[in-house]
C-alpha cells in the first residue's frame, strides 16, 4: 500500500527522464552552437579581435564607433560627423530595400493568391508556374538576373528601348540610384514563395463564413473585406515579420551581384554585407560582433513592436471583438 505513490512518482519521473533524453541532441546543440557562441560574440563586441591575437578588451569603443557623432549628424545631416558613416549607410540601404520590397511583395503575392483561389481554368498549372521561381533562389538566379539587367545588352533594357520606347533606360545594378530597385525587381521574381503561404491561408478560411456573408446579402467585394481580409491578417502579419527579418540578413544576391563589394558607390552596402566584410575581409571580428549584436537588438525590437501592434489589427478566429 505504501509503495503505490512511490511507484507513481517513479513512473512520472521515468517518463520525464525519457522525454529529456530524447531532446538531448538539441540541448547539446543549443549550448554548443547557440548559447556559447552568443555569449562569446557579446564578449567579442567589447574587444579588439583579429582572430590571430587574443581578444583585447576595449570597453565600449566598438559601440562608440557606431554611435559617435550621431547627434551632430541628426542636427547637420552631414555624414562626415559620423565615426562610421558606412554603418549608417548600410542601415539606410537595408531599410530602403525593405520599404520598397516588402509592400510590393505583399500586394503582389496577396493579389496573386486571391486570383489563384478562384475557380478558373488551369489552376494547378498557374500555381506551379508562379511558385517555381521561389524554389530556385540563390547564386544561379542572381547570375541570370545580372544578365537580364545588363544596361546595354540585357533583355529588360532591350525591351524598354525597343518596345516601350525609353531613350536611355536605367543602368540598374551599375547605377547607384537604380541598384537597390534592381535588386527589388529581382526579388519580385520569387513572389510565389509568399503567394503560396497566403494561398494556404485563404484555403483555411471556413466556407460557412462566406455562406453566412452571402445570406446577409454581401457582394464579392464586401465578403472580401469582411471575411477574407480579417481572416488573413495573421498570415499577413507573419509574413511581414519574416520579411523584415530576412531583409536584415539579405546577403547572397547582393554578394553575387556586386562581387561582395556592395557597389556601385556603396549603393548596395546591405547591413549583412558590411558585417561580413568587417568579419571576413578585414578580420575586425570585435566590430563585426558589435554589428551582429546591434542587428540582434534591431530584429528583436522590430519583432516585439509588430507583435505588440498586431493586437490592434490581427484577427484570430474565435477571438471576440467588440464594435
Amino acid at each position, binding site marked *: 500500500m505504501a509503495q503505490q505513490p512511490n511507484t507513481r512518482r517513479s513512473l512520472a519521473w521515468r*517518463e520525464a527522464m525519457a*522525454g529529456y533524453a530524447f531532446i538531448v*541532441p538539441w540541448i547539446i546543440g543549443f549550448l554548443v552552437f547557440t548559447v556559447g557562441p552568443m555569449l562569446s560574440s557579446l564578449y567579442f563586441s567589447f574587444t579588439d579581435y583579429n582572430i590571430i591575437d587574443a581578444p583585447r578588451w576595449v570597453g565600449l569603443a566598438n559601440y562608440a564607433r557606431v554611435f559617435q557623432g550621431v547627434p551632430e549628424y541628426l542636427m547637420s545631416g552631414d555624414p562626415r560627423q559620423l565615426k562610421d558613416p558606412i554603418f549608417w549607410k548600410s542601415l539606410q540601404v537595408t531599410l530602403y530595400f525593405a520599404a520598397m520590397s516588402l509592400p510590393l511583395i505583399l500586394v503582389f503575392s496577396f493579389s496573386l493568391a486571391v486570383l489563384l483561389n478562384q475557380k478558373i481554368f488551369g489552376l494547378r498549372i498557374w500555381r506551379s508556374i508562379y511558385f517555381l521561381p521561389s524554389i530556385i533562389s540563390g547564386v544561379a538566379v542572381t547570375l541570370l538576373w545580372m544578365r537580364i539587367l545588363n544596361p546595354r545588352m540585357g533583355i529588360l533594357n532591350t525591351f524598354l528601348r525597343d518596345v516601350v520606347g525609353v531613350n536611355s533606360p536605367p543602368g540598374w545594378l551599375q547605377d547607384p540610384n537604380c541598384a537597390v530597385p534592381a535588386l527589388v525587381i529581382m526579388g519580385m521574381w520569387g513572389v510565389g514563395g509568399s503567394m503560396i503561404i497566403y494561398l494556404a491561408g485563404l484555403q483555411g478560411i471556413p466556407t460557412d463564413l462566406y455562406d453566412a456573408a452571402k445570406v446577409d446579402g454581401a457582394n464579392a467585394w464586401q465578403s472580401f473585406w469582411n471575411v477574407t481580409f480579417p481572416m488573413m491578417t495573421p498570415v499577413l502579419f507573419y509574413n511581414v515579420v519574416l520579411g523584415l527579418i530576412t531583409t536584415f540578413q539579405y546577403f547572397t544576391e547582393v554578394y553575387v551581384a556586386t562581387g561582395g563589394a556592395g557597389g556601385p558607390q556603396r549603393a548596395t552596402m546591405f547591413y549583412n554585407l558590411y558585417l561580413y566584410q568587417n568579419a571576413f575581409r578585414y578580420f575586425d571580428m570585435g566590430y563585426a560582433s558589435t554589428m551582429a549584436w546591434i542587428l540582434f537588438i534591431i530584429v528583436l525590437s522590430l519583432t516585439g513592436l509588430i507583435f505588440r501592434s498586431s493586437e490592434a489589427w490581427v484577427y484570430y478566429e474565435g477571438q471576440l471583438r467588440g464594435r
Partner: protein
Amino acid sequence: VTKMRTTTMFRRLRESMRAIEMALAGITTLILAAGAVIIMIPLAFMISTSLKDPGQIRSDGNTLIPRTPLTVAINGKDAPLYEVQRPDGVVQMAMIKKAPGGMANFVDPAQPDTVVLLPLAEQTALYQLEIHWGNYVEAVQAMPFFQYLGNTLIVTFVGMIGMLFSSSLVAYGFSRFRARWLDVLFLLLLSTIMLPSQVRLIPLYVFFQNLGWVNTLLPLIVPQFFANAYDVFLLRQFIMTIPLEMDDAARIDGANPLQILLYIILPQARPALVSVAIFHFLYAWNDFYEPLIFLHTRDKWTLAVGLQTFDALYTINTHLIMAVSLLMILPPIILFFLAQRIFTQGVVFSGVKG
C-alpha cells in the same frame, strides 16, 4: 403586374450577375496567363542562352532561339544570306560587302558577278537553328564541376541524414512526454527561429578554426546532427496528430519509447519526414553564406561558391555560366515537379529556414 415585373427584374439581374462573373473569371485567367509568361521569360532566357554560340550572345543576345546566320559560299568566302525585296518579288541573296550610307552589296548566289546595291536595313537576314549542346560539356570542363557537385552532395545528404535523425528524436521528445521543463524548453527552441545567425557566426568560426575544421565540410554538416528549430517544430506538429492509442497499444505489448518511435511514430510520420527532407535539400543545395565563410580552397567548394567564383573570373562566358546555372537549378526543379503537392501544402514553414 408589379410582382411579375419584379421577378423578371430579378431574373435579368441574376443573368447579368452571372455574365459579370464569367467575364471576371475570363479577365482573371488572362491576367494570370500574362503574368505567367512574364514569370517564365527569365527561365526561357537562361535555357536559350545556355545553348547559344557566344558570337550570337554578343550580336543578338536577346533572341530566344539559339541560331546562326545562314551563309553561302561566294567566291570561296562565306557570305550571310538575306531575303531581299526585288522588283520581281522576294529572293534570297548573299551580302558580300557593306557600303557607306547603310547600303550593302548583294549578289544572287547563282550569278556571283552581278552586284546589286541595296539598303541593308530593309532586308531580312536569314538564320538557321543551331543548338550548342557542347556548351554543357565545355562548362563542366571549364571548372572542377564534379568536385563541386560531389562536395554539394556530401553536405546536402549527410546533413540531411543528421537532421532527420536528430530532429525526429527531439520532436518525439517534445510531443509524447510530460515533464515540467519540456514546455519551457520548447518555447526556447521556438525562439531560436527568430535568432539572426550572425550573432553566433563569428565565435563559431573561431571555434571551428580551433578544431581545425575551417576549410573542411564539417562545419556545414556536424551542426545538422543536433536538430534545428524549424524541422523539430514541423515534425512535432505532425506527430501530435498521430493518435496516442497506437503508442499505448505498443506499450502494452512491451515496447519501450525508442521502439515506439521506430515502429509506430516514424512510419506514420513519413509525409512530414519527406517534407522536412525536401526543405533541407533546397536549403543546403542553395546555401551560399556558410560555404563562403567556411570553405577557402577550390577543392572544398560547393556548387554555389564555385559557380559564383567562376562568374567573378570568367563573367564574359555567359553561355557557360548559364549552362552551369541551369544544371544547378535543375535538381530543385525536378524535385518540385515530383513532389508538387508537398510544396503547395506543407510549404508554410519553408521560407524561414536559413
